[in-house]
């Protein structure tokens, strides 16, 4: 259960990136999973650098790494958008998708070349936990790390919802989502708004990357694909384009996976998540929290 929530928190953070980009320009940002992977790598490398420099007090190190990886990954997100998607704005639907797939392959191999294909281990930094329950045959523990992950996720999501709901940026973003041309005519700098959307999405993905790094203690260049896929599934499950939907979807996918792995078989946990998605989509074609679309004819 707690594992599921932790996993779900990570998926939810990545899913927000997908859902925002989809909401604003209607494209599936396939490279987003790789952005998350890059975030994880930057986190690992930053930890290592801090270790060399001698900053070992855990909270400080965590904070520095968090900021560094968010900034740098955000910059990666910006660059990807600038190079691979902006020139294709306004062309037909599949062009940016292919470009995104190409970008995803490129980033994966870029990291592989730059850092090697080997799995990067990280020493556990946050140890210990609280025992919640003690049964006869099992104990339920909640590790500090899990607490951190869940708390950070909740804080970020709250902050993020506020950002979208109450700031000029959020307003510009929602305007672009509704009608990009009209927003531009009304003086919203749509290019910048879209760029910022990518940056924000990348930053959240970086946090997710950092947290999985801490949680699992390993990174490799291939983690982006599957995580991206799951997160995208989560976004669709929740109703793509909807922020609370992405959060809910992420949590659900995380829970489903954890439960499935615990009670049935861990081999088929990916299948379980997708099957649930298909079933949900059949009964609610726009996802759990998606706005039902009335066909306007």
């Amino acid at each position: 259960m707690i594992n599921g929530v932790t996993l779900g928190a990570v998926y939810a953070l990545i899913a927000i990136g997908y859902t925002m980009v989809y909401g604003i320009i209607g494209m599936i940002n396939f490279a987003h999973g790789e952005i998350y992977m890059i975030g994880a790598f930057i986190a690992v490398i930053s930890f290592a650098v801090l270790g060399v420099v001698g900053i070992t007090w855990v909270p400080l190190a965590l904070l520095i790494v968090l900021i560094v990886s968010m900034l740098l990954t955000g910059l990666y997100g910006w660059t990807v958008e600038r190079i691979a998607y902006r020139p294709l704005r306004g062309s037909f639907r599949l062009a940016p998708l292919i470009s995104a797939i190409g970008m995803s392959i490129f980033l994966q191999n870029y990291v592989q070349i730059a850092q090697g294909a080997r799995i990067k281990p990280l020493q556990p930094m946050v140890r210990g936990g609280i025992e919640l329950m003690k049964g006869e045959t099992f104990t339920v523990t909640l590790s500090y790390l899990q607490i951190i992950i869940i708390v950070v996720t909740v804080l970020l999501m709250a902050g993020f919802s506020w950002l979208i709901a109450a700031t000029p940026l959020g307003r510009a973003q929602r305007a672009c989502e509704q009608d990009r041309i009209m927003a531009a005519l009304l003086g919203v700098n749509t290019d910048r708004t879209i760029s910022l959307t990518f940056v924000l999405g990348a930053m959240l993905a970086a946090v997710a990357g950092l947290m999985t790094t801490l949680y699992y203690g390993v990174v490799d260049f291939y983690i982006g694909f599957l995580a991206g896929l799951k997160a995208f599934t989560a976004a669709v499950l929740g109703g793509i384009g909807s922020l609370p939907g992405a959060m809910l979807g992420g949590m659900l996918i995380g829970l489903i996976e954890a439960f499935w792995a615990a009670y049935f078989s861990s081999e088929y946990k990916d299948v379980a998540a997708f099957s649930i998605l298909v079933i949900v989509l059949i009964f609610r074609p726009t996802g759990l929290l998606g706005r039902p679309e009335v066909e306007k004819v």
Partner: protein
Amino acid sequence: MTFAQRLRDAGLAALVAAVLALPLLGFETIDTGGPLGIRARFHWIAYAAVSVFIGRLALLAFFDWWRLRQGRPEPLQSNAPARKDILTRIGSQADKYLMPALIAFAIALPMMPFADRTVVDLATVVLIYVMLGWGLNIVVGLAGLLDLGYVAFYAVGAYTYALLSLNFGFGFWEALPLAGLFAATFGIILGFPVLRLRGDYLAIVTLGFGEIIRVVLLNWTDVTRGSNGITGIQRPSFFGFPFTSSPEDGQTAFHELFGLEYSSIHRIIFLYYVILVLALITNLFTMRIRKLPIGRAWEALREDEIACKALGINPTNTKLTAFAIGAMFGGFAGSFFATRQGFISPESFSFIESAVILAIVVLGGMGSQAGIVLAAAFLTLLPELAREFSLFRMLAFGAAMVLIMIWRPQGLLAHREPTLRLSTQPSSSGGGKP
């Protein structure tokens, strides 16, 4: 743009590159057994920054030059359509000239002097992708359904043949139609619930389906032997005459039949022709079905589903046929793949394959049969040619996909040939009241 502006722009780009390079290129992680070690290699950052600087500068200069050239007043009397760029012109003529030329070349290829084993083998791989591209084109290019899990049907075809051959001793030719049928059935089973979804939802469900198939193949070890794959799949025979140096009793080997010296290349060439024929059947089928009501309905659905409904077209059934037929060709290609390799494992059917096939369709120019051939050749040959730089080949592959898309978002040879023209239709009784 002045030179100073260009310089500033390029400098900015270089700065961004340097910052981006800082963590991933600037430091190298090393395994020390214990905690992760780190080594700085800042000169890499410098390389990255400098190359981006020069690249950006060159690009800007090129853009300005290009704009200057484009902006030059055109000579009077120039008729505008003639200024279409060369690829568009090739695209509009592709069906008439390019395709026959390509087919002729393909037929003649094994007889060319340079055609050794490697070349024919490579050409076979290209043709597999051409066939997959043409198959997927029915789904994506004609019907406009975004299918990100096409490889699933390829896998179904391959495993159908492999298992039939292994467990029931089916030969390639007997199993081929079954593999297609089975893949089409899968297409219908998948398509029935999900084809009502709008475009992008369909994409994710097909993507998920592709992954499910792969995971099942990987884990259902009793039947599929999991990640070990299936070996010893029966090789195809020349209509009952096997390609072996020493046939079993009562059998005639291919080389004996024609009185040739035994050579292993016979089979390779034979396989090449098999896939060529299969691919050409796919092509012929597509060209024909475009001119039938179902093909036109696919294209109409791609354009406007609501209008189709208002004309009495059943969207779900129409999409389902496109999906099933696309899947069928995927299945054919899959069983050919199995018989050619003699060995299959779930690894051959990962998402990246689906992505490459989709990229072939889109890069080629949606709906352009010749464009798909070019894109398939390009995307399969590029990694092969770059084999020496094995480390960088996938990097280049990804970059090339992005660059081509930016260069020609509509695809290499985008062109749609009308399925019928009024001017070529015989005029009957003269337009009386129908």
